[in-house]
């Protein structure tokens, strides 16, 4: 891990630090649900925070700055080009402290989510993991509420089947 220059605290830094601390864990969890890869989730979220800092004066004024960071992170995670760039930019800052790998339950759900079509997966993650409402998801995706409901219905049905199969395999 490289040495990181510590920024002298000021109002802008303080609000960003508090925002980062309050949202990092849950955003990584949401991106892990989306990618099934802890490192990719971590890099995408860190990249999104880095971009948020670049325009923090503006982002801090949004109603939901965390929603902005999540959208950037999902864009980064979705695109191979951006994903590689993020990994290069942030891998050097990974902390040496290790944390246990995701529990079997978490890993099984993440793998099952990964098998869903992207829009169904995104809807499931936003609704069940990020706690967005159907209306909020519809607005973000630019589709009617009914489309989101259909994605959720189909996605849950597919997940139930995939997780049952996984349970059968695990005995």
């Amino acid at each position, binding site marked *: 891990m490289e040495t990181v*220059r510590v920024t002298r605290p000021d109002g802008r*830094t303080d609000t960003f*630090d508090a925002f*980062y*601390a309050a949202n990092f*864990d849950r955003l*990584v*969890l949401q991106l*892990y*649900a989306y990618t099934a890869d*802890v490192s990719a*989730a*971590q890099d995408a979220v*860190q*990249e999104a*925070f*880095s971009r948020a*800092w*670049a*325009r923090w*004066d*503006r982002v801090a004024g*949004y*109603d*939901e700055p965390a*929603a*902005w960071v999540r*959208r*950037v992170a999902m*864009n980064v995670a979705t*695109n*191979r*080009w*951006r994903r590689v*760039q993020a990994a290069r*930019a*942030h891998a050097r*800052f*990974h*902390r040496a402290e*290790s*944390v246990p790998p*995701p*529990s079997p*339950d*978490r890993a099984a*759900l993440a793998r099952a989510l990964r098998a869903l*079509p*992207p*829009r169904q997966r995104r809807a499931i993650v936003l609704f*069940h*993991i990020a706690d967005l409402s159907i209306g909020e998801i519809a*607005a*973000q995706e*630019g589709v009617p509420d009914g489309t989101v409901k259909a994605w959720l219905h189909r996605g*849950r049905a597919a997940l*139930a*089947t995939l*997780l049952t199969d996984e*349970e059968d395999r695990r005995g």
Partner: protein
Amino acid sequence: MDEQRLDDVFDRFRGGAPLAVAAGADAAREAFRRRRHTRAVVAGAFAALAVAAPSVAFAAGAFDRTPPPPGVIASDPPARTTEPTQRTTAPPTTPPSTPPRPTEPADVPAAALLRELDVPAGYRYRGDAVDGDWSLAAIAASCDPPRGVEPPGVAQRGAAFRRGPDESLLQVVERMPTSSAARQWLDELPDRLGTDCGRVRFAVVAEDFAGDGSLVVRATADGGEPNLYVFVRQGPLLTQIWQKHQVTVGVAEDLGRAAADRLCQGTAAC
């Protein structure tokens, strides 16, 4: 697995321990500083060479897409040639807090198209001529009544790859007037095609596998083999790819993913 158990799985997923140790807000700022430094070096090199080639800057990863704030519909940046209606002679009293947003090129740079290393083995680049009736629009035009599915691009560039005497892989990239126009065109494509136009049947066999939007359309004419048409969008850039005799959707998706990455080198939307 019933509904209640599935909800329990989500509850347990949300309720567990953190997955990673945060690198920290200072690390996020440091990454931004390093990127800004890299951009400054790249910009300096451009100034020294007096070369304004946006595609090279894209290749250097100098542009980042950022979404609009939640609840705000994305709009396109103003065109490079747009002049302000009023000019101010007074210098600004404070510098802008963020670097100026990169402008969208007016054309389609060659770097935004596929290269030999992106396409199946054995294909060789044979120039930018992609004339002929290979496109989905050409097929759809033969319907009765004809289906109009020609994207109304403002700039275009093609790439032709050949393998042996008979195998072709063709790509065309269109710059649409705006990102929203490109998105709307791609979203509406399945409806414009329909599923059956008499002698040709259409089916969307894959979607959302690459870029900001993507589709694979299978067109099957009476008595002929199916043709797969790959469409991928990144911002205002829209590409169509066709490989002769290729009927495997997975291969078509791989081409689309490679094309999506290349498109990023031709638009500030990535």
